[in-house]
Every structure is written in C-alpha cells, then in structure tokens.
C-alpha cells in the first residue's frame, strides 16, 4: 500500500529518528542478526469508510510499531522519537494525504517467536492510527 511506503519514507527523513535508526524501518520481521536499534511495523487492520454505494474516500489504518534497541533505554528513545515524529501529524505524507494520525497504547513488548527474534532484545511498542484520504468526496 502507498501509505506503508510513505510511513517509512517519512520516518527515515526525520532527523531525530534517523539519527537513532538510520534507515532500519521496515514492515519485515526483526531478525536476530539485524542491526539495532530498529523499527518494525505490522499492519493490524485497515477499515475503509464505506457507504451503501461504495467507498467513501477515507480509510483508517492501524499499525503496531515495535521499537527495538540494544537496551530498554535505547528502545525507549526510539519510541519517543517515533512519537515526536508522527503523533498528531496532519497533511501530506509522501503521496498520501493524512487528515489524522495518533500514536498511543505504548507498551513494553517482550518479543515472542512470532516476531522472529530472540526473547532478549528489548522492544517497546505503540499503536498508530492513520486516516488516509483515498480520493476526494463528491457531493454529500
């Protein structure tokens, strides 16, 4: 999806976030040998705003963002930088138009086998809700 690419590009273009994670922001699973710190993103759901005639032009995406570090402090710094970069952002993001974006539900997230990493890597997570305009609405 276009918004996935735009989120990554937006993140690595942010000076503070890039200083921490360089370009290690992806939708791929975290590997044991991957360089830290890093950010992995998982799409939780997408919900187009539908009406009886089709799609309404807005879609709500929910992402789980996992911030990995060599220590909990480092992971926490990455998460804080992510929040400062993204939370309450509104406007153009790459090729996507984003009317609303919230970062919340921050939590410690011990990595499990489903994350493809060893249990020892500190990981802090948050949920990011992103509304994306797909096309301009016609008459209401």
């Amino acid at each position, binding site marked *: 999806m276009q918004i996935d690419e735009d989120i990554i590009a937006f993140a690595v273009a942010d000076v503070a976030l890039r200083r921490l994670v360089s370009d290690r922001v992806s939708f791929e699973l975290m590997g044991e040998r991957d360089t830290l710190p890093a950010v992995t993103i998982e799409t939780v759901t997408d919900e187009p*705003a*539908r*009406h*009886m*005639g089709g799609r*309404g*032009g*807005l879609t*709500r995406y929910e992402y789980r963002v996992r911030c990995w570090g060599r220590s909990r402090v480092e992971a926490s710094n990455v998460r804080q930088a992510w929040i400062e970069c993204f939370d309450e952002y509104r406007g153009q993001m790459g090729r996507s138009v984003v009317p*609303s974006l919230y970062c919340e539900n921050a939590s410690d997230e011990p990595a499990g086998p489903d994350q493809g990493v060893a249990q020892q890597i500190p990981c802090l997570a948050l949920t990011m*809700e992103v509304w994306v305009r797909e096309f*301009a*609405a*016609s*008459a*209401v």
Partner: protein
Amino acid sequence: MAVMGTMVGAGLTLTYTISTDQFEAQIINYDWSGGEVESLETTHMGTTYGARTFRPGWIDFGTLTVECHFDNKAAATKSHLLTNADRQNTSGSIVVTYPDPDGAGALTPGTFTCSGFVTNAATRVPLRGTATITYTFKLTAAPTVVATA
C-alpha cells in the same frame, strides 16, 4: 404463503430533487419510520358496554432518516439543504432505489418514490471516525413502491 426474504444495504441509493438541485448522498444508514394510521374512536352511548370501538383515520407516512458521510469541503451548499432560501416552504421528490437482494443488478430495481421536505439536518463530527450528517425528511404524500423484479 408469502415468505419474507432478506437483503443487505449495499447498493441502496437515494436522490432528492428540489428546485433545480439534486442531492445525492453517501448513505450509511437509512430508516423509514413507516406509515401510521390514525385510530378514531367511535364509541358512543349506544355501544355495547365492554370494548371501545374505533375506525381507521388519516394516514401519516412518517419520516425518512438518512445518515450520510459529511464532507464540508465537498459541495457545501448541498450539505446544508435547510439553508438555501429557494428550498424553504417547498417539497422535493425523493427516490430511493433498493439494492438487488442478489447483488447482480435487477432488471427492474425496486424503488420507493415520494415527496417530502427536510425537517432537520444534523451534523456529527467526532474526534475519531468519519463525520456524518443526518437528514430527516417528512413525507407529504403516499409513497409509490415498486418491487424489485
């Protein structure tokens, strides 16, 4: 014996034509209150004691309530049907086209046609989720109903 079937809302459309303008909405909920027949009491001193008696009176065809997506940027004049002077004190034409229950596009779509006017237009803009506008139409005559075929 007639058997009632089922259908989903996807595909339903409503157009409201008034003056020179036509209103087409992105509908997310559609409710017709239904018609109601007035009951007139006919009990009199000669009525056998026990049960009051009634006869049917006038029919009130009720209201249509339509909840739609709301985008104030897109066609703001159409978003506020109550604000235009040329629409006041005037009824318009409402045509509801029901979806084909099989989703394929019926040869003869089912329709519900009537005249009415807007009595209320209420907007709701939540912090989370999409903004909506809910129109309430008062029906001013008996609707014409055509079954899907």
